[in-house]
């Protein structure tokens, strides 16, 4: 019925959940989809900043849950895309102000009117994470090609599986192809070899991302950005389109390189 609820989560903080949520939201809206973004990172809201909508906030998610406003009133319409909305997180409250049941109720109200509901999850595996995944039809795991981020992603995937929320799909963010080529960074294959879930996108490290976030214009609106192009491709894959992966040559993997160093075969 109606919208598909997609939660973006990671375990580790700072890997690019908010960046991914904002860019996928904008990309889906550009494809003509009706989209609402929910910032479930209560207490540490920042999806509104990345979306450039901070100055329009009147009500937030906690106001909706606690009945201080109608759901409609907390939905901020995007400046450029009239079918793209944001429900911001509360700045001052903690995650316990909201329950998983509240999230299910809110998304159920939104489902008939939208094509996609994207939920930006907080880091960690506690209440905020459970709130964010409770209503999910599909979960996107964002990770970086780093051992510690992959470890946390693996943990999250295990928790999702235990709660029958799988199978999640994987976004590997901040890949530096040069470093991968030199064997200094895990390749996409190294990451999927451990996580063993379906890969839906590889987003390169891109210096356009930070200024775009700062100015509130998600990077996917910049046609020159490689990260932006990667997010557009992920959005198309979410709609069911079969989009081939941009080639990222990594003939020698990180672990192979490591092995060589240890066995004295290093270059």
């Amino acid at each position, binding site marked *: 019925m109606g919208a598909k609820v997609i939660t973006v989560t990671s375990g580790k903080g700072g890997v690019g959940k908010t960046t991914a949520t904002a860019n996928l939201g904008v990309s889906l809206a550009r494809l003509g989809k009706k989209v609402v973004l929910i910032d479930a990172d209560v207490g540490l809201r920042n999806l509104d900043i990345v979306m450039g909508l901070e100055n329009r906030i009147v009500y937030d998610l906690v106001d909706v849950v606690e009945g201080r406003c109608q759901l409609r009133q907390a939905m901020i319409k995007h400046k450029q895309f009239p079918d793209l909305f944001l429900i911001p997180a509360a700045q001052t409250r903690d995650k316990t102000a909201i329950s998983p049941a509240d999230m299910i109720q809110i998304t159920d109200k939104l489902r008939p009117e939208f094509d996609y509901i994207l939920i930006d999850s907080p880091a960690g595996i506690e209440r905020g994470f459970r709130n964010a995944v409770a209503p999910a039809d599909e979960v996107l795991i964002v990770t970086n090609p780093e*051992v510690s981020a992959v*470890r*946390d992603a*693996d*943990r999250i*995937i*295990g928790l999702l*599986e*235990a709660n029958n929320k799988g199978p999640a799909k994987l976004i590997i963010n901040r890949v530096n192809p040069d470093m991968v080529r030199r064997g200094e960074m895990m390749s996409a294959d190294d990451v999927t070899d*451990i996580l*063993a879930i379906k890969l839906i996108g590889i987003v390169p490290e891109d210096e356009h991302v930070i200024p775009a976030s700062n100015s509130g214009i998600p990077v996917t609106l910049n046609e020159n950005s490689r990260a932006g192009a990667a997010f557009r491709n992920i959005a198309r894959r979410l709609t069911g389109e079969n989009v081939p992966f941009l080639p990222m040559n990594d003939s020698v*993997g990180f*672990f*192979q390189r*490591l*092995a060589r160093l*240890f*066995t004295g075969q290093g270059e």
Partner: protein
Amino acid sequence: MTVAIKGIKEGLLVTLPEGEEWQTMIADLAERLDQQIAFFAGARILLDVGARPVTKHELTSLKALLERRDLALWAVLSDSDTTIEVAQALDLKTSTANVIPGRDTSEGSEVSPEEDGTAGVMIKRTLRSGRIVHSDGHVVVLGDVNPGAEIVAAGDVIVWGRLRGTVHAGASGDENAVVCALDMTPTQLRIAGHIVISPPDKRRRPKPEMALVRDSQIVVEPWHEDKEGLWARR
């Protein structure tokens, strides 16, 4: 009398003392579990309530309390018909005979490993990071053991998949314990009191191997068709 928690090969045996207030005992149990949550997480629970009649509400809320701690209530042992009925209605095992043969002989773990060499837990999925499995018997995993996952078994550990996490076989001191895997690249492998880490060049074509203790040292041997030789040497 306090709540007794004991690892047995079927899982964690929780024995509630007779004559104590239910709420008090449950609070005590919760506190004890929370203190060692990392150790217990993922275990299944056998609850021995003795002759006490337990209501459906009490059992349901206990089950939820355990689930919040990532523990599954699996069996309820009781001499009370009411309790047994309630437990069965909740789809829990109740038959003492096939759950714990030694329940009435107080110390169940005296049974020698040789005699129930086949007892253990079977895990039919990949153990991901953060998962910890403890067993007083053997552990069989049908799936991978990822980095960050941990298995501690008094007996043997068999991984039908890639072993990349941490594993301790013969954890109570059994030097005859073995670890088998289709791809043996554990973060750390222990058998009884011995310990090895994988050499970093282990990224090669996976092959089935078995780790065992020989001359006070862990050795890893490939499985081959001449397996008679391999087993005969033990």
